[in-house]
């Protein structure tokens, strides 16, 4: 039983982590491509259309990876989490089915037209198909986060005598207080990834002194969108998301902030430190007094409950993992804002394209928005543990009763091997497209 739970969780964690590397770029990048196409329609400058075409190639590859790794996600609710699906399917099945009907059909029907229809459709209609693909991908994110929000903060339901969760208020799924802050936070973070990818590719061209016109365009676009998105991810969306956690999941909040003991006269904010789970305290900490209380409640002396005050069976199952995930996300977010602000200042002074140190910074920042997005999701998911439906259904109660650990480990190993291959292929092919650059894309 323990092994079954472990492998079911590992498989879901592995497949969703890998999968989400792609949609986070898809969602943000679709917006940026639509932006280029829009600029082209307005200015009739061909470089914008070439830029759009170039990014569509990366987009197509990235989208394909997202699709093939996404289908296993929907299947796994049933294959590995059958009991959870049986009990809550009437509710979360609703939002997941809507995702298929409203967003996957939209994306998949118009992606083909968007990628291959430029000549057939003309520029205005082609722009429209891009807009529809963008809408489809953002709708998909919305419905997934609606599902996620119900698991974090269940609303609009009743539990029957046989343990089944029954939907009683459809509208509540979409007015859930958890939904909108999380969704906007996630979309901002997705745009951060896309912006950094664009800026890094631009910086690569500028530093290697090729395709410089496009290098400048990509760096400029990446820095401006990236700065806006990083700021939005922190405030108000990140702030509102954290306030939901402190209100509805106080034990999770304590664990992610690393607060073991309730402090009289206000809580400090932890910058560095290692959770010591044997003694239930934080080792080697560097902290600033009272700031956490201020950020959370706008009162310097407001008390925040420490983790040790909550009953141990409701503690998040992996406190150190949760604490690190959260701190890495916040730390990286802060670095993004810092770097992009400097870059924006230099851009304003018209010196960015020659400030090599910032270009190097943008180039090497490429993997970090992916890490920030991933650790952000780990904060949300590890924070929900030990629950599948927060406060009501424990994770251990949701697994498929008849799928043995040997079968799950078999499929987990298969996924690991297959995804390793997909990851290598993606890097190879995306690298090739980037190396060739936009200028060779002219037909």
């Amino acid at each position: 039983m323990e092994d079954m739970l472990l492998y079911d969780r590992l498989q879901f964690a592995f497949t969703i982590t890998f999968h989400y590397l792609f949609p986070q770029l898809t969602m943000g990048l679709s917006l940026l491509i639509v932006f280029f196409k829009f600029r082209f329609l307005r200015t009739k400058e061909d470089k914008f259309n070439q830029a759009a075409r170039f990014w569509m190639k990366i987009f197509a590859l990235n989208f394909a990876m997202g699709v093939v790794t996404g289908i296993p996600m929907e299947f796994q609710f049933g294959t590995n989490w059958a009991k959870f699906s049986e009990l809550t399917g009437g509710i979360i099945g609703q939002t997941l089915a809507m995702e298929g009907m409203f967003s996957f059909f939209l994306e998949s029907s118009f992606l083909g037209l968007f990628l291959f229809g430029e000549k057939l459709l003309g520029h205005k209609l082609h722009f429209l198909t891009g807009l529809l693909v963008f809408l489809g991908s953002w709708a998909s994110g919305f419905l997934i986060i609606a599902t996620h929000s119900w698991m974090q903060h269940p609303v609009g339901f009743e539990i029957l005598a046989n343990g089944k969760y029954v939907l009683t208020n459809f509208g509540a799924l979409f007015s859930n207080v958890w939904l909108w802050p999380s969704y906007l936070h996630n979309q901002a973070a997705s745009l951060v990834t896309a912006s950094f990818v664009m800026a890094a590719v631009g910086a690569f061209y500028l530093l290697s002194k090729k395709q410089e016109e496009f290098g400048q365009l990509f760096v400029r676009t990446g820095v401006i969108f990236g700065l806006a998105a990083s700021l939005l991810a922190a405030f108000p969306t990140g702030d509102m998301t954290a306030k939901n956690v402190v209100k509805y999941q106080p034990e999770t909040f304590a664990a992610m902030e690393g607060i073991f003991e309730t402090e009289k006269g206000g809580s400090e904010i932890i910058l560095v430190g290692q959770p010591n789970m044997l003694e239930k305290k934080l080792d080697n900490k560097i902290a600033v007094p009272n700031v956490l209380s201020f950020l959370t409640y706008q009162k310097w002396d407001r008390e925040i409950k420490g983790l040790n005050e909550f009953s141990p069976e409701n503690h998040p199952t992996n406190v150190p993992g949760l604490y690190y995930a959260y701190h890495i996300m916040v730390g990286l977010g802060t670095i993004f804002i810092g770097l992009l602000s400097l870059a924006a200042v230099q851009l304003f002074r018209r010196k960015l394209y020659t400030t090599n140190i910032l270009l190097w910074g943008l180039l090497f920042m490429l993997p970090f928005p992916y890490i920030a997005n991933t650790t952000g999701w780990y904060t949300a998911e590890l924070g929900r543990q030990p629950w599948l439906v927060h406060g009501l259904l424990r994770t251990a109660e949701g697994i498929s009763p008849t799928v043995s650990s040997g079968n799950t480990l078999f499929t987990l190993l298969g996924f690991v091997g297959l995804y390793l291959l997909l990851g290598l292929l993606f890097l190879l092919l995306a690298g090739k497209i980037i190396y060739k650059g936009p200028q060779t894309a002219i037909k």
Partner: protein
Amino acid sequence: MELFWYIVLMTMLAVYVILDGYDFGAGIIHLFFAKEEKDKVLITKSIGPFWDANEVWLIAAGGVLFFAFPTLYASAFSGFYLPLIMILWLLIFRATGLELRGQLHNSLWENIWDKAFGLASLLLALFFGVALGNVVRGVNLGMVENGVSTQEAHYFFLPLWNSTLDPQSHQLGIIDWFTLLFGLISVLALTIHGAAWIIFKTNSSLNSRLKTVIFYANLGLVGLILLSLLLGFILNPLPFQNFCSRPLVWIFTAVMLTGSLGLFKIRSWKKDGMGFLFSSLFLAGGFAATVASIFPNLLPSTNTVNPSLTIYNVAAPEYGLKTGLSWFVVAVVLVALYLVIQYRVFRGKMDDVDYHGEH
């Protein structure tokens, strides 16, 4: 309400079989008959802009199954665990085969992805047929041993096969000679369907040969279906009793027969779309007749301890099903619109469509 969602679900699955079916069939033709580069490229062109949207029908049907019949979704997806995950892997290979082939111009690279696309298509056709065979045969719900359930009444687990491949064995496997027969029927039917699609949508040099392929495959298909009816009658009389007593099943069967007979005339038609029309009729009629013959069962039980899963005992409660209706109607209208747009833009022969923009 249950009946409405049952019809929706089965219609979506039938559409999936017809649409993604031609992709699988094209893959099989590609694997066995396309030898020249230009025919290979034409075949992938003819499904290139469509396959992704076609695959969505499976995902969307899965979503509807999840929300309307959550107990069946939970039971069947965990019970058929291994083949389902393998189907996922094959879908990944099919997609990467199609999408990655054109990214590098190297004959080894192209060869690898051609094989991945073709083999994955062949195996998917086989697996989906085997899956239908499992649903008709039924499973040991509750995993009953010596008259006692060892699991909750609606859960089960099947290994890929048992040592005897016997569909009447106490220890059932997913692949036995009965379900394998369904798999072979599916492979032949989709080969015909894919060939008909290629004839319909391209001017490939294979077209006249494919008509001969369709003719003989159709002959084999009719033989296999007669065999399965005969064996099915010996194995599991219930669907066959239903078969005789239900007029609707007769109608579906008639549709299937029309498709089947029509395909024999493939070589004499002038219009290239006719073959595809008849193979679609065959697939839709065959699928509908099969599921209707076990109605209202969705997954029959092979033991007498636990009841079969029917549309009534696995459905979500009324409120959810009713609310689902309101958004579903909107969604269906939109989906129909997308389909019309998609097939209008890429209407006619696709030899000149620019697929895989890289040149």
